[in-house]
């Protein structure tokens, strides 16, 4: 299980622009490097990120081999309703890691 850190405000007023931040621990091995004995190190990366707010996709991203280890994302959305914000990362071979946070909108 990869370590995940999320930053979501616990409450907001309706219509507020809120900042969401997400960090996941992952080596993001590019596939272009070689080990100390000259052997190729296989590519091992997260390829997709998706953030949903109460089931609706509000942000998504595709990662390539050029993305640094432990990718960090920060983006904004408008607080519309009380609900769950879910962050989901998908590995190149389909494995999925996700975590979520609740927000109360008044």
């Amino acid at each position, binding site marked *: 299980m990869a*370590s995940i*850190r999320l*930053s979501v405000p616990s409450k907001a007023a309706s219509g507020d622009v809120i900042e969401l*931040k997400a*960090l996941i*621990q992952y*080596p*993001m091995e590019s596939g272009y490097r070689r080990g100390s004995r000259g052997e190729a190190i296989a590519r091992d990366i997260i390829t997709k990120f998706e953030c949903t707010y109460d089931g609706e996709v509000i942000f998504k991203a595709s990662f390539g081999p050029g993305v*640094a*280890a*432990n990718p*960090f994302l*920060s983006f904004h959305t408008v607080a519309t309703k009380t609900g769950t914000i879910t962050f989901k990362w998908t590995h190149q071979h389909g494995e999925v890691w996700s975590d979520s946070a609740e927000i109360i909108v008044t």
Partner: protein
Amino acid sequence: MIRIALAALIIISACGRQSAGPDPIPEINAEDVVSGYSFLTAETQALQDDDFANPGFLWVDRGERLFESTQGVSQSCSSCHSDGLVGAAATFPKIDPASGALINLEGRINMCRKDHQQADQLPYTSDELLSLTSYTAHQSRGMPINVDTIGQAAKHLSAGEDYFFTRRGQFNLSCAQCHNQSWGQKLRGDTISQGHGNGFPAYRFEWQSMGSLHQRLRDCDTGIRAEPLPYGDQTYVDVELYLAARAAGLKLESPAVRR
């Protein structure tokens, strides 16, 4: 008579690094001592200052989970250290009173695992040990480095100092030539720092990971094409003590972000 005088001269010149060569390298003036932080770009400083974005906190978080969970047969770190270990990391390396040996934070954690938790020894480069040192060091963040250098520690301090001022490797460079004499100047695209360890364990972009001070020392030795010492080597622990004494008063920054 001449022979005695000559012998005395040889002894004098063999003692102390001040007389080691025609052009001795001085220490950094106390008022000029600054953390590696001041040699970073504004963007890297901002990353270190943001407790969310700073990737070092991935290790601090994991360290906290390990600290709270049962290790070995009996207990967690927090069953003894219920208030954490605030301030402890700023005083390492230190002499273990029982054995008289100089040990660093890694050594101290493994000693606790053996003596109090009956847990297996964590390898020096394991993510678990790195997480525990990161968590412990983070608890002393902002506190001035304050190591004991007298008594039994004195000989370790001078061994560390010797290593720092001794030229080595194919480039025939000493630590002091870069970090005492040339700090602030450019080495290719980088600004040479003063070589303090107050940010470690630190997240380095070059590693794309958190790493220990010994990993950094090994990189420096490799950089000057010298044979790096093994992780946890006593000489590196001595160097760690010398670096801490040299950085006395600087605030501990772990988890720092470095290039």
